[in-house]
């Protein structure tokens, strides 16, 4: 039995029924089912049991700079390697399985929903391996890449320094050429996830540094493979490479994941190996970052899914108060709190946010798979869309995911604030997703300035036109039962057009400060419209399934017909979830649009 019930039915619905992944991926449904089942078994057996204990114990740094992970992590990680779960994505030439990104999204949800901190070890290693498979030399791929693919060694990404956070280009870590691809690295990186620990015998850092004499700013940065231990002639980790963990952070959440300060070359003896060419550091690091931005959005989504599952279970068990339908009368009969309208509102909020997020993340995975198989104009069209969706996956996924976690916590009343009920950990674990991998503020700027203004709104218009076409085509679908929702969706599409026109003018007039003020509400605006679009698509798929099963048209009759039947109620609830999202959550867009459009400079003018 799962401690954190996994949302396998909706995952399958999203993958097979909504996004029709079997057609796009060329893998048969049975194989995909077996993949999901095996993943679910793995996380239930090995990850769920260590989530709470790992949170309480955390990681321990010893005086000599070594770090011990929480109990149970080593065993779980050994199973991760043994089951070959780390190698899902990498190419076969590096020992990987070359599985589609859409499946990686499914696996990531299962893992994160069960133990987010564990995913930080595993996910980064995978992203480093994938980057090497595209950008490193053949020799580097064989020497370093293979061990990262198998997950026997840990991978890290080292950008952040005390003086270089969001402004990566301010990095002062240096590299001095020795010969060939070998350089001497010197500098200190902070906040490095998994920089030092005892899960793996070797840690391979991907470090941004500036070669002496290269330009300032991010364009002058290069990227190096910097191992904890140098290799002997047989390729085994052998001698220390002057890499030292000078401290670890005490954090609000993800206690099972270690966040380190790493000193490279304190004694002048740290060797690194250049990947690609000098000055390509940022572009190569972005291979990791783009993948990780999607992963981090998934952290928000998956934790929301777990929080929802826990809250739903609790709401069905907790008896408190009488039904408000009885008026002010205090009745004898006490009800489960799921009977209270306000509790249902909270549960539906969590359900709608986590399911919209799931659809967005699996869809983005599929787009990546389709782009890899496409060429020419089709490929650039897909890449434009992926570029547009990446900051939305990251920021909207983490923001709504975090909101859903706190909403789920509210369902528990006072018990939610107590550790025993597990949901407060999910809130703490989810909060970091809004910060790392580029803060949500930075994502909003990336969306508005680079992805939207950068191509004069072309990618955005393509998306909005697609949604409008969907609305036009389906007005009368399902006997017009979703007409109201589709009209509302179309209204909000129009709103985004209007906001974009206002912002384009502001931007065109050189008002960068005023434009930047609108970035965060603009990202929410677009994210919400996409969420509404995807859930309406799902509602139509669910309507078709309901029709096939002979569901009555009348809402009350349908509710009764579905009650007590797992499959019927699943589809019935899918339709209601789309309704709820459009009327209760997407309607936030009128406020968001007003925030963007208004000529209010108070935040800039106030003397604070």
């Amino acid at each position, binding site marked *: *039995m799962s401690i954190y019930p996994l949302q396998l039915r909706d995952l399958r619905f999203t993958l097979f029924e909504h996004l029709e992944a079997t057609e796009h991926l060329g*893998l*048969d449904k*049975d*194989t995909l*089912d*077996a*993949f999901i089942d*095996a993943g679910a*078994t*793995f996380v239930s*057996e090995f990850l769920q049991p260590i989530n709470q204990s790992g949170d309480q114990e955390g990681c321990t740094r010893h005086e000599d700079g070594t770090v011990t992970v929480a109990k149970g992590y080593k065993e779980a990680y050994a*199973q991760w390697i*043994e*089951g*070959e*779960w780390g*190698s*899902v994505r990498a190419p076969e030439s590096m020992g990987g*399985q070359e*599985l589609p990104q859409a499946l990686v999204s499914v696996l990531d949800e299962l893992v994160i929903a069960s133990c987010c901190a564990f995913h930080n070890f595993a996910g980064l290693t995978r992203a480093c391996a994938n980057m090497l498979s595209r950008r490193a030399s053949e020799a580097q791929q064989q020497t370093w890449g293979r061990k990262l693919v198998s997950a026997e060694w840990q991978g890290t990404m080292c950008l952040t320094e005390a003086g270089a956070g969001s402004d990566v280009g301010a990095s002062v870590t240096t590299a001095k050429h020795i010969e060939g691809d070998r350089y001497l690295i010197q500098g200190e990186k902070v906040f490095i996830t998994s920089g030092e620990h005892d899960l793996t015998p070797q840690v391979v850092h991907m470090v941004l540094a500036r070669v002496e004499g290269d330009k300032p700013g991010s364009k002058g940065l290069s990227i190096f493979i910097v191992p904890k231990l140098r290799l002997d002639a047989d390729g085994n980790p052998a001698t220390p490479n002057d890499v030292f963990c000078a401290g670890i952070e005490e954090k609000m959440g993800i206690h099972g994941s270690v966040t380190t300060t790493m000193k490279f070359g304190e004694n002048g003896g740290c060797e690194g190996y250049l990947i690609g060419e000098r000055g390509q550091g940022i572009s190569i690091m972005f291979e990791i970052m783009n993948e990780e931005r999607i992963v981090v959005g998934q952290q928000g989504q998956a934790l929301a899914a777990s929080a929802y599952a826990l809250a739903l279970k609790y709401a069905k068990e907790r008896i408190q108060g009488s039904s408000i339908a009885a008026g002010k009368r205090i009745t004898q009969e006490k009800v489960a709190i799921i009977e209270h309208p306000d509790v249902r509102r909270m549960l539906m909020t969590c359900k709608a946010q986590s399911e919209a997020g799931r659809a967005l993340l699996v869809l983005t995975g599929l787009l990546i798979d389709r782009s890899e198989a496409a060429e020419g104009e089709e490929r650039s069209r897909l890449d434009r869309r992926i570029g547009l969706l990446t900051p939305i996956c990251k920021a909207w996924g983490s923001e709504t995911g975090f909101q859903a976690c706190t909403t789920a916590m509210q369902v528990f009343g006072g018990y939610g604030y107590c550790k025993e009920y597990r949901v407060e950990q999910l809130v703490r674990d989810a909060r970091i997703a809004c910060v790392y991998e580029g803060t949500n503020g930075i994502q909003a700027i990336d969306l508005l300035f680079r992805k939207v203004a950068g191509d004069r709104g072309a990618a955005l218009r393509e998306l909005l036109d697609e949604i409008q076409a969907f609305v036009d085509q389906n007005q009368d679908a399902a006997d017009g039962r979703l007409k109201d929702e589709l009209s509302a969706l179309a209204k909000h599409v129009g709103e985004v057009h209007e906001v974009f026109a206002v912002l384009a003018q502001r931007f065109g007039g050189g008002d960068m400060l005023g434009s930047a003020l609108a970035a965060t509400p603009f990202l929410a605006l677009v994210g919400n419209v996409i969420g509404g679009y995807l859930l309406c698509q799902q509602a139509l798929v669910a309507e078709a399934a309901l029709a096939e099963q002979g569901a009555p048209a009348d809402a009350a009759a349908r509710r009764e017909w579905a009650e007590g*039947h*797992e*499959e019927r109620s699943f589809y019935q609830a899918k339709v209601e979830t789309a309704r709820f999202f459009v009327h209760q959550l997407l309607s936030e867009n009128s406020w968001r649009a007003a925030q963007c459009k208004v000529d209010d400079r108070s935040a800039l003018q106030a003397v604070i």
Partner: protein
Amino acid sequence: MRIFVCVKAVPDTAARIKVDKDGSHIDPSGVKFVLGPYDARAVAKAISLKEAAGDGAEVIAVSAGGTKGERDAKKRLKDALALGADRGILIPDDGCENRDPLEVAKALAAAIKAEGEFSLVLLGRTAVDDQAMSVGPMLGALLGAPCVTDAVGLEIAGGKATVTRAAEGRQQTVELTLPAVVSGQRDLAEEKYPKLKEILKAGKKPIADFAYAWTDGGYTVTALEPPPEPVAGKIVGEGPDAVPELFNLLQNEAKKLSF
């Protein structure tokens, strides 16, 4: 060496089982089916025997069962393939629930005989749904091969199988001349988890259909009652003072103690 492993799709032991309206079948809605847990250990054992034997050894998974929905036996054969079996044989039987165990044993025996030679047939000691525990021994009789049940250890050397069995607290070691039939306990092998590569390969391994003309046999399940719902626990007090009351309740209410 050729090893057959017989496997069955059974409801997940964690699933809450409801009885259908007719009172003799389970209501499958919302119930997840899995590879029988004892069968899974038998598969794991077969794979380790195959690995020890080296080249030329083959493991064939056989299942008689449904072809639709959650009961689809092909999915469970794929589980066995993902654990490392080389190929599968499906004996379709959409009326498999409450099937006469003798019929099942006959169908399995026919499918195995149709393949020619075999060294060993492995199966779980029981299927956790109907708990009949009879297919193994019947299969031994039908194949004319020696049979041992409840194995916790199994080694093969020189045309013989040495089987350790656990029975009523004592251990017994039995030597069987191959070919033989062995049904296993949970401890027959350690639990094995499928590797990702094997899961993906399993999708491409062959599963052949073997047709069997099913009859009702002489066996009908007429009623099925689920175990009673567990009753809520009760705290009777704390420390030594509570012992007499605890004793009283165990003896008189729960009737779990008698003298």
